[in-house]
């Protein structure tokens, strides 16, 4: 095992910069997907409420 010093022999900016950019990209992708999913499930639940309201009114008129 050899623990590297954090400056990485003067290459720290480039190496850490690469991993930082990658981390940002991955976090961005995961978070944006979570938000997309959340928006969809919210929309879906409001749709089902609307659908049941519509169904209810249809039932009222038909009965």
């Amino acid at each position, binding site marked *: *095992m*050899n*623990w*590297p010093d954090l400056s*990485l*022999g*003067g*290459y*720290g900016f*480039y*190496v850490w*910069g*690469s*991993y930082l*950019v*990658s981390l940002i*990209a*991955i976090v961005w*992708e*995961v978070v944006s*997907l979570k938000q*997309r*999913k959340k928006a*969809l499930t919210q*929309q*879906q639940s409001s*749709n089902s409420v609307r659908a049941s309201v519509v169904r209810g009114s249809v039932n009222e008129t038909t009965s």
Partner: protein
Amino acid sequence: MNLYKYASPATFYPLAGKIIPWFQIPAALLFATGLFVGFIIAPPDFQQGDAYRIIFIHVPAAWMGMFLYVLMAIYAGIGWAFNARLASMMASSLAVTGAMFTALSLITGALWGKPTWGTWWVWDARMTSTLILMFLYIGFISLQASIEDPRRADRAGAVLALVGVINVPIIYFSVQWWNTLHQGATIRILQKPTIRGSMLAALLIMLAACWFYSVAVVLIRLRCIILEREQNASRFAEVGV
């Protein structure tokens, strides 16, 4: 068991939900292991010192960028030829992750090029062809976004994806066909790799991590696309009623 039933978005949706955790958790573990081996166990390179450690993210990102493009083109082609909705949705889902990895390979490549070659960018065959790959991904995503009818968007995207697939072997063989500034392949299928065991291990673990990660996020996005399209379809049905 009839496997064909999973070709329908409605039956694939719950199956994908079950598959996702099997890729999410190993992806996180593999990323942690790969970084540990890459930074703690692998020694500095005798020529490039510690700068070479960018390889552990740069090479997997570049491979995934190319691999996901081919996969995207195959799915788009199947969706077009057999009128398979799920395959086309898979292609749309793959495009975003593929574009992200290609962008990462370009950025980390620039960050590697500066200390080792003295420049962020040159119009070298491999880098130029990778930039074209990025444009193909952006073209595919924006073309699909610009067409309202999803099936028409799928067909238009499939044509672009299939024409653009010619670029992938060009990227892969560019370092052999042309005299480029980019170094040649470190790992070859038929020959011994030219790097140390621990470096190779870190590289392969990070590649596996990127692969598992891609499967997880592509399936999560695919589930979103299925829901979005089904919702749109039901809204149209409501209007029709």
